[in-house]
C-alpha cells in the first residue's frame, strides 16, 4: 500500500527523444537518441526499489534492475553498468532491442497505475555512458586459468554470452564466426537505425578484452568440422542461429524482386548499404514494396525499404493487428514513418512481367476463427476473396529455421520436430557429449536476451561438465 501512495508523488515517465519521422526516413541514423543525464536521474528516481522486484523476475537473465537503477540515482554510472554486466554482457544492445514492454517494464509495479519505469532506456544510458566515459574495458582481476579450451560456433548473442561467462571462469575461448564480421543476426539482421553497428562492435570488443579469441570467416562444417573442434577443444558450444529463411512455397517466389527478409536486410546491413558513402545501390526495390509477415523482422524490412526510397511500403499479415508478434514500439514507429498495414490478408501467388520481375501479388482475405496452438486466433480463408495488388518488390518475412551447416559431420545429432537442435533445457547439453547449444538454433527465432540466457546456461553447464571431467580423471 505504501508503494501505491508514493506513486502519486512521482514524476511522469521520461520520454526518450527520437528523430522526427519525416527526417529519419531519409537516413539510417539511430532513431532513438538516448536519455540525457538529467532525464536518466529523473527516471531513476521513479523506481520504487521494490523488495521483491517483479522486473527482475521477468528479465530472462535476471539483471538486478533495482540495483543498477539505485546506482544511477547515486550517479555511480560505471558501477551501474558493471552491475548489469554481472548478468548481461551486452548491456547497450539489450537496452536498445529488448522487448521491455513484454519483460521488465511489463512487470514494473509503477505500470499498474502509472507508466512503468523506462528500464531499457536507463540501461542504454549507462551502457552509452561507459562507451563515452568508461575505463575502456574490463578490469577483472584474479581470473584463475583452468587450462581448458572451449570452441564457440557463432558470434551472435548466445555465443558471445557463453564466451563471456566462460572467459570469466578462466576458460580459453575461441569463437568461430562464418561471416566476415562478428555479431550474427544483430549485425546482418537488425537495421542500423535500431542498433548501430558501432555499439555491437564495442560490446564485442569488451568481451574480446577478457581474452576471448574471435576467428571470422570460419565456417564450421566446412572450414573446420565439429569433430575436429572436439579434438582440439575440451567442449563445443553451438550458437549458430536460425539462419535458414522460409519461403511460402507459393507460385512465383523465384521471380526477380522477391527476397527473403535475410537477403533484403543482409544486402543493406552487411554490405554497408546503409552507409551514405556507399555509392552502389545494394538492392533494387522500386516504388511499391510488400512485406509479408507481422513480426519485428517484417517491421525492420518495411522501415528499411522506406529508407532505401520505397514510396509505398505495405506490411501484409494474415492475422489482425492484435495477433502481430511485433513490439508495440516497432509498430508505432513504423506507422509514424508511413508504413501501411494490410491485415487479414496473405498472398497465394506472385506474378511477374515478361522479363521475370515481380509485377503483382494475388492475395486472399482471411477472418479469424478459434485460437490455434499458439493461442492466437486462427486465420480462415474467405472464399472468393482473391484480389491482385500491383507491386515492385516482395520481401518474405515469415520466419527462419535452423541452419544446420555446422552439423555436416554430425548426421545423428538429435533435433526437435521443428528441426532445431534438441537439448536438455537446463544445461543446453545436446545428444552428443561435449557439445552444448543455445540461442535461436535451439529455440527457433527469438530475442537477443533469450539467446543470452541460453548461452549463459550452457556456460554454467560446460563448466560443470569440464570440472566434472577433471575430478574423474
Amino acid at each position: 500500500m505504501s508503494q501505491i501512495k508514493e506513486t502519486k508523488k512521482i514524476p511522469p515517465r521520461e520520454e526518450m527523444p527520437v528523430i522526427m519521422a519525416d527526417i529519419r526516413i531519409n537516413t539510417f541514423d539511430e532513431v532513438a537518441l538516448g536519455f540525457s543525464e538529467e532525464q536518466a536521474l529523473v527516471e531513476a528516481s521513479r523506481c520504487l526499489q521494490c523488495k521483491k522486484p517483479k522486473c527482475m523476475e521477468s528479465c530472462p537473465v535476471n539483471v538486478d534492475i533495482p540495483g543498477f537503477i539505485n546506482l544511477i540515482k547515486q550517479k555511480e554510472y560505471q558501477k551501474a553498468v558493471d552491475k548489469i554486466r554481472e548478468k548481461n554482457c551486452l548491456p547497450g544492445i539489450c537496452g536498445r532491442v529488448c522487448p521491455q514492454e513484454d519483460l521488465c517494464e511489463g512487470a514494473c509495479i509503477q505500470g499498474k497505475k502509472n507508466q512503468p519505469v523506462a528500464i531499457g532506456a536507463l540501461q542504454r544510458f549507462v551502457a552509452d555512458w561507459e562507451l563515452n566515459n568508461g575505463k575502456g574495458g574490463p578490469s577483472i582481476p584474479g581470473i584463475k586459468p583452468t587450462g581448458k579450451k572451449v570452441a564457440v560456433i557463432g558470434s551472435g548473442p548466445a555465443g558471445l554470452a557463453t564466451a563471456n561467462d566462460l572467459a570469466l571462469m578462466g576458460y580459453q575461448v575461441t569463437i568461430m564466426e562464418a561471416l566476415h564480421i562478428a555479431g550474427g543476426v544483430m549485425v546482418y539482421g537488425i537495421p542500423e537505425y535500431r542498433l548501430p553497428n558501432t555499439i555491437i562492435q564495442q560490446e564485442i570488443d569488451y568481451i574480446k578484452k577478457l581474452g576471448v579469441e574471435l576467428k571470422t570467416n570460419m565456417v564450421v562444417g566446412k572450414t573446420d568440422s565439429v569433430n575436429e573442434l572436439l579434438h582440439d577443444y575440451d567442449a563445443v558450444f553451438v550458437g549458430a542461429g536460425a539462419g535458414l529463411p522460409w519461403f511460402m512455397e507459393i507460385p512465383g517466389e523465384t521471380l526477380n524482386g522477391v527476397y527473403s527478409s535475410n537477403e533484403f536486410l543482409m544486402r543493406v546491413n552487411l554490405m554497408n548499404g546503409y552507409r551514405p558513402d556507399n555509392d552502389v545501390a545494394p538492392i533494387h526495390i522500386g516504388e511499391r514494396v510488400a512485406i509479408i509477415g507481422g513480426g519485428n523482422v517484417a517491421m525492420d524490412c518495411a522501415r528499411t525499404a522506406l529508407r532505401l526510397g520505397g514510396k509505398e511500403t505495405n506490411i501484409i499479415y494474415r492475422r489482425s493487428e492484435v495477433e502481430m508478434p511485433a513490439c508495440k514500439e516497432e509498430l508505432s514507429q513504423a506507422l509514424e514513418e508511413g508504413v501501411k498495414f494490410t491485415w487479414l490478408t496473405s498472398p497465394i501467388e506472385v506474378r511477374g512481367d515478361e522479363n521475370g520481375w515481380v509485377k503483382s501479388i494475388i492475395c486472399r482475405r482471411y477472418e479469424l476463427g478459434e485460437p490455434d496452438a499458439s493461442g492466437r486466433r486462427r486465420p480462415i480463408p474467405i472464399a472468393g476473396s482473391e484480389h491482385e495488388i500491383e507491386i515492385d518488390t516482395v520481401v518474405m518475412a515469415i520466419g527462419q529455421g535452423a541452419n544446420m551447416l555446422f552439423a555436416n559431420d554430425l548426421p545423428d545429432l538429435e533435433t526437435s520436430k521443428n528441426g532445431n537442435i534438441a537439448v536438455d533445457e537446463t544445461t543446453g547439453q545436446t545428444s552428443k557429449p561435449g557439445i552444448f547449444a543455445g540461442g535461436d538454433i535451439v529455440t527457433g527465432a527469438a530475442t537477443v536476451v533469450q539467446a543470452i540466457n541460453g548461452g549463459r546456461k550452457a556456460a554454467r553447464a560446460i563448466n560443470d561438465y569440464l570440472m566434472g571431467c577433471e575430478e574423474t580423471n
Partner: protein
Amino acid sequence: MFPILNKVVWAPDIKQFTISAPDIARKAQPGEFVILRIDDNGERIPLTIVDSDQNRGTITLIFKESGRSTLELGKLEQGDSILDLVGPLGKASNITKLGRVICIGGGVHVASIYPITRALKKIGNEVISIIGADNKKSLILSNEMKEISDEIYIATEDGSEGQKGLASDLLKQLLEKGIKVDMVMAIGSLAMMREVSEITRPYKIPTRVSLHTTMVDGIGLCGSCRVSVGKEIKFACVDGPEFDGHLVDWNTAEQRASAFIAEEQLAIEKFLSGGGCQCHK
C-alpha cells in the same frame, strides 16, 4: 588478411591469383568455392577453387573481370592482400569411377571444370575434354587440360583455335558418332550448360552442371542463390553448386541471373569513370 603470392594474366580480362589460405587449402575439394571480399566496402565475391596445395597452404583462383568487384580485384598485384576469404563452400563434386566421361568448359569456366576433370581422371575414368572460348586469346588452361585428358577438343567462336563454333557443337558431333558416354559434366555460361543438357537429354546421359548464381553469404542464410531443380527450390550455395542439368529449370535460372544487371552496369560505369573508388580513400 590473405596475401596474393602470385598473379598470372591469362588474357587482358582473365587473371589468376595464388593466395595463401592454409585453412581452406587443407580442406578444398574439386567443385567447391570460396567467397572473398577485397576491402571493407567490398562485395562478397564467390569464385571456384581451381587448385589447392595443402603443403604450401595455398589456393588458386581464376576470374574474369566482368563486374565492378572483379575489375577491382584484377587491379591487385602479387604482394597485395585480400581482406576476407572464406571457404571451402558448397558441396564438393561427386568424384567416382564411372567409365567414360566428357568434361566441357566454356570461357573462364574452364578454370572451374579443370579440378573436377583432373579428379575424374585420377580416379580412373577415361576423360574426353571439350573446351571453348570466344577466341584464341581468351582460351585458358588448354595445355593443363590436355595433360589430364585422354582426348581434347577445342572450339573458338571466331575459329582462331580449334574448330570454329561452340563447345556444345563438338559434344553434339561426338554423340552423333555414337560413342558411349557415362557422364557429362559441363561448366560455362547458363546458355552453354542449358544447351549441353538439351543435347544429352535424348541420349539419357547423366549430365551435371555447376550453377554460379548471385550470392551474399554463401552459407544458406539469404536464399539469393535459389534455383528450381526438379520442381524443388534449392540453394546453390549449400545444396549445390552442382545439379542435374536435366532437372534444372533453366528459364528461372536465366531470369534470376539477370536480376542485378542494371545495378552492376551502374557500378561498372562509376568504377571506370573513377567515381567508384572515392569511398575507399
